[in-house]
């Protein structure tokens, strides 16, 4: 807050006001797109904690989301445990998995690209196991019961209610994650993380316990992703291993923070709010081109949309490799230059 310029503070106040009031005036469609944006910025924040803060690249974060989703979904459908309690188990299991991967990776000194591949390997391994787990539905999927009347009203204990409720839940999660990450980054642990990220040898030489702080990053990040999984399960109400844990999901999680700016606090949020509407716009635009006959009718909209999307991602890497958020900040003068901070 102290680092913001006047226009920066103004923009922040407007953003918070718009987000809080959005369900009052937005259509159901806008609300659902915003929910996806907020969801991706929440998971992105978790992922960013590992790469952006502690320098650990994970391309398997869908694993933690999936474990959280399956744990809470299983407890709810098979044992009637409400998600308020289920979330504890979900976070615990995601954290255990995170600490297993972290322990193995750091104990055996697997660095950089190899660590990323270790996360992919674990995520794929668990996905295939889930394909064969009959008690979790296997490839046929796990479905969470939902009734017409439960789509109205507010039931926070069972996470059942109108879209507006889901909106405020994920808004609270994304906002909370932002504040928590901010506190961590500006606290002792954040300085240790950044020291490890920028130069592990030097950090170790001045007495930072690299192993322990890397473990903190993985465990906290996987726990957050586990919470996201609970939201995912109760928002979509159906879970398929391929859809929840596929490598595409893991890549999707990395996109928002990378596009927004790795290591920045607002980058994951900004990236999510750029990429998701971009995808929606592309679908709309491609359908329009089909109507006007520029693209043949039998062409798959999804394919054309993804082509442009991939192109957009590649262009961002080539033109703004530090992410869009630092660039926008500078352009609009939202943040004070480092010299003028109090």
């Amino acid at each position: 807050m102290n680092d913001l310029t006047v226009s920066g503070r103004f923009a922040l106040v407007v953003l918070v006001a718009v987000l809080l009031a959005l369900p009052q005036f937005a259509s159901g469609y806008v609300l659902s797109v915003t929910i996806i944006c907020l969801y991706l910025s929440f998971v992105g924040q978790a992922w960013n904690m590992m790469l952006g803060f502690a320098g650990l690249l994970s391309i398997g974060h869908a694993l933690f989301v999936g474990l959280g989703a399956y744990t809470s979904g299983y407890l709810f459908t098979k044992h009637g445990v409400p998600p308020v309690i289920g979330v504890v188990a979900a976070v615990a299991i995601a954290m255990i998995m995170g600490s297993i991967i972290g322990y193995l990776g750091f104990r055996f000194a697997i660095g950089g690209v190899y660590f990323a591949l270790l996360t992919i390997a674990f995520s794929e391994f668990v996905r295939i196991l889930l394909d064969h787990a009959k008690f979790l539905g296997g490839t046929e999927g796990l479905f969470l019961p939902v009734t017409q009347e439960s789509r109205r009203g507010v039931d926070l204990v069972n996470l059942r209610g109108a879209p507006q409720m889901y909106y405020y839940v994920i808004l609270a999660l994304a906002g909370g994650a932002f504040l928590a990450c901010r506190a961590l980054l500006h606290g002792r642990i954040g300085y240790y993380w950044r020291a490890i990220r920028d130069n592990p040898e030097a950090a170790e030489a001045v007495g930072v316990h690299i192993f322990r702080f890397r473990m903190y990053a993985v465990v906290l990040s996987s726990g957050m992703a586990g919470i996201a999984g609970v939201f995912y399960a109760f928002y979509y109400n159906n879970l398929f291993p391929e859809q929840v844990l596929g490598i595409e999901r893991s890549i999707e999680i990395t996109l928002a923070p990378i596009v927004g700016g790795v290591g920045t606090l607002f980058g994951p949020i900004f990236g999510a709010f750029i990429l998701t509407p971009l995808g929606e716009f592309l679908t709309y635009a491609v359908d329009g081109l089909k109507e006007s006959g520029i693209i043949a009718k039998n062409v798959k909209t999804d394919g054309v949309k993804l082509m442009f999307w991939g192109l957009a991602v590649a262009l961002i890497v080539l033109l703004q490799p530090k992410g869009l958020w630092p660039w926008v900040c500078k352009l609009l003068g939202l943040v004070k230059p480092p010299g003028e901070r109090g």
Partner: protein
Amino acid sequence: MDSVTIINALVSGLLTGLVYGLSALGLSVIFGVIRIVNFAHGELMVLGMYLALMLFRWFGLDPLWSVPIGAAALFVVGYALQHFVVRRVAYLPDHMQFLLLAGIAIMLVSGCLVVFGPDAQGVQLPYALDSFAIGSLIIDKVRLYAALAAIAVASALLLFFKYSSTGRAIRACADNYLGAKVVGLNVDRLYALTFGIGAACIGAAGCIILLLVQVHPYLAPAYTLLAFVVVIVGGMGSLFGALLGGILIGVSEEMASVVLQPSLKTAFSFGLLIVVLLLRPQGLLGRVVR
């Protein structure tokens, strides 16, 4: 479970594994020299498969004969990719390079989806169901031909790197980037050539594997992961390692589908990957990079 079934599975896994190995060679060459993890690996392979499929449809060309064409076409694609795009991100951290290649991968796979549709398509060859019998051992004709073609391409590549002056120059870049520049090698051009050669390997492997499987766009990410597994098990940057890794994965997949269930075979190779990463992160034949 009698011994004949197991030996048959072993041989069939060995033959398939050689094709995996050839494909992984492409990944390994690119990583070993340019230090870029080619996340669009499977996508390039699927391009090669579709090329062979089209050549078969239009001219009735056996995929084995389209291997040189596929290799040449993918060489151009790889060269251009390195020269125009990847070169520009060499200074960026790993995750940005990964993102760029993931973006390219998404473009390629969705491009295939738009052009060819989502259905699985394959070639029907007159000798598809033939096999050789040696005693009680039965070898599929297509599998044997595929493996022989893979061996031929891989040997050509190994000879190229060992004896040709360009191959030696490329190895020099891999061993010592600065030294290579100091002695006056055109590193940028050699890097582009390397990416082209790697992609040519992938294209050749794509043409060959069309003998064994039907092609559809979503094969691409699966092949990317498979090649990663093979290369890490064998050792990143080691050419023999890639072939050995391919054989190991081919055999273990085949054994897993005979002993357990076919759908569990990928879990088996990922399990193998985890074990290798933990016990010998540089791979079976890899060297420790400092």
